[in-house]
């Protein structure tokens, strides 16, 4: 019995907890991508850099707060600074839309043109971020490091395996749940949200019904920018902030959005967790789990790992390809926003 519990705790510690946190970050990122796709109808390659920008502003605000001696008790100070990051990111999204994207919307440009434009934005944002904060790693998590320490868990339960939950992981999951609930409430209950859904569903019909397209587009950028800032900050809190990792995040984020069905918010969230857990489950070394679950003292010889951890990112891509080949519309097809 204890063996089974030990095996479960082992899985929980190395797969469930990190998977929930990483899945939440991906889900928030994919939600932003999917919103832009649903309303503005293009794949925004610059979303990773937008996340990076939001995280950067939050870090700067965090430093300022820390400098003033303000902290958030056991929670990371970055949570207090997050609104600043959100406002700045929303601001830059709106400015970029006004200066850059609006022209192509009026020209009714095709999706590839938008894609190339977003590559231009990607360059601008990544240059801006590196120029302001530099390319170095930044660790800005403070407060209590753990919600649950492995040692404490062992003492409490008397098991051999410990379960550690970092504060940043807890914060990530809770924030993601709150944000997702807010987004769904907004889309399904408010008038503005409904007009957004109508616009995404059928642009001409929405225009005929008197929906103001400029307003819908602006609100989409507000939501996408806010989501990017939150996702970027949470990722940076959890894994440390490095400007160049955010470009690499674009791939799993797109994989999440496409797996769930691009344009579908529920799909984006489900996709985020599918990608996160596949990455972890396929690269987890099952050696000790099997040792616990089999009777006697037998321990498998190798690591019993399906893929080396180095190939973590490749997993998200393989999922992407499979989905594109088998069911290009994603898991929740036929429904947008």
């Amino acid at each position, binding site marked *: 019995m204890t063996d089974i519990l030990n095996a479960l705790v082992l899985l929980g510690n190395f797969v469930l907890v990190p998977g929930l946190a990483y899945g939440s970050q991906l889900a928030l990122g994919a939600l932003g991508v999917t919103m832009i796709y649903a309303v503005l109808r*293009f*794949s925004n*390659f610059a979303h990773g850099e937008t996340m990076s920008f939001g995280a950067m502003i939050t870090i700067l605000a965090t430093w300022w707060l820390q400098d003033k001696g303000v902290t958030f008790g056991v929670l990371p100070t970055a949570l207090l600074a997050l609104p600043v990051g959100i406002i700045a990111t929303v601001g830059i999204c709106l400015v970029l839309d006004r200066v*850059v994207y609006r*022209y192509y919307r009026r020209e009714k440009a*095709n*999706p*590839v*043109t938008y*894609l*190339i*434009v977003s*590559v*231009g*934005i*990607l*360059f*601008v*944002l*990544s*240059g*801006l971020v*590196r*120029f*302001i904060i*530099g*390319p170095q790693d930044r660790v800005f998590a403070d407060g209590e490091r753990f919600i649950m320490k492995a040692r404490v868990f062992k003492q409490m339960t008397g098991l051999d395996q410990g379960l550690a939950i970092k504060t940043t992981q807890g914060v990530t999951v809770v924030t993601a749940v709150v944000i997702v609930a807010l987004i769904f409430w907004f889309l399904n209950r408010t008038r503005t949200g409904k007009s957004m859904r109508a616009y995404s569903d059928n642009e001409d019909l929405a225009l005929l019904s008197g929906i103001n397209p400029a307003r819908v587009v602006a609100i989409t950028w507000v939501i996408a920018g806010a989501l990017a800032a939150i996702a970027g900050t949470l990722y940076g809190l959890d894994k440390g902030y490095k400007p*160049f990792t955010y*470009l*690499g995040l*674009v*791939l799993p984020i*797109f*994989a999440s959005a*496409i797996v769930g069905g691009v344009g579908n918010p529920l799909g984006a969230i489900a996709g985020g967790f599918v990608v996160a857990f596949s990455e972890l489950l396929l690269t987890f070394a099952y050696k000790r789990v099997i040792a616990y679950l089999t009777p006697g003292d037998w321990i498998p010889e190798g690591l019993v790992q399906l893929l*080396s951890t*180095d*190939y973590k*990112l*490749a997993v*998200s*891509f393989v999922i*992407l*390809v499979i989905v*594109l*080949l*088998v069911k*290009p519309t994603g898991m929740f097809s036929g429904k947008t926003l």
Partner: protein
Amino acid sequence: MSTNLRNILLFAIMGALLIAVGVIQSANVALAIFNLCLISAIMTLGVNIQWGYAGLFNAGVMGFAALGGLAAVLVSFPPVPEAWAVGGFRAMLGVVTGAISIFLGIIAFRKFPGSRRIRGWGAAGVALSGIVLMRFVLDPAVEVIEAVEPARTGFLGGLGLPIVFSWIAGGAFAALAAWGIGKIALGLRSDYLAIATLGISEIIIYFLKNEDWLARGVKNVNGLPRPVPYEIELQKTLWVQELAAQLDFNVIELSSIIVKLSYAGLFIVVLVIVFWLSERALKSPWGRMMRAIRDNEVAASAMGKDVTWRHLQVFVLGSAVIGLAGAMLTTLDGIFTPASYQPLRFTFLIWVMVIVGGSGNNLGSILGGFTIWFFWIEAEPIGLALIELLTSGMGEDSALRLHLIENAAHTRLATMGVVLLLVLRFSPRGLIPEREK
């Protein structure tokens, strides 16, 4: 002003800029930039074949360039006999097993009875069990190969052939990969194709970083043989010393200039050949057909053109050119560093070159490759000078000034973005627009 005159003027300005760098900084710097301009131009031609001729968005340029780099290692590096002795046969057997299992998977998908779904699962099962078998064969070999003098070799080495052959091999590697990728990803919507190729290029880089037995992974392979003489040897020869005396030049600097000029000569030959072939293809019935497909797929396919097959063709061709350029780049560097392949530099920057130069125009691609590479390198000193000028009013040790100067190098990313956005907005057809037919 006629188009020809305009083009000549644009290239003349470019040449003048390079000469200016030669005078202000040094001839060596100018030639170093010039060589990379040539390689960038070839890479841009490759992307232009895919984008300009056929409208395919390939965001995996980096992966094909890296495969070219791998070819440079595998062709030119001398073989490591110890590694071949301990695990060579087994490793080859493993590679063959992997190839056969994928092949069997494809056969299974084609030949199995039943619905698409059942065949898909069957094929996946066949391929996966083959891969597992491959790992049983390959893994022990990898372990012993990587244990052979890991500080110096730890990999199988290459064929020990002249490195120039690797340029062809690089093209072939990239073409082969492009064929496989194209089979999977072409036919997807344009933006999905971009995401898919972006992902595949990342996977290629991960593969090269982690498979140490193949090309040492992140430990890099350096000391690749050169197609041109070494500076040290040149300095010993009489004619170089005499020439240096005649021109009143430093012998060391002169030898380095001669080496760079030899590289430039080789690269120019390749660039001219690739350019000539691309132009011929563009003007041929094949080129007209590709443009017809690009401009209206439905109409072209109604005229009986096999759109998917033609897309695959052009994707493979363009990728081969990128692979060729990738092999040339590694040849010039003399070192293969998988970690240096970054999407910003190897995929998106090449895209900026294509767009700024003028998509669909080969001359434009060359000019784009030159211009963008020039400013990519020179944006750093220019940006630094600009920031020093702008902040000269501040105190010598003002924190803001120091920070700005320290990070000045990153302005080039933003500059490239702004250039791309401006060109897209105000001159979407680029510096040298596609010719109207």
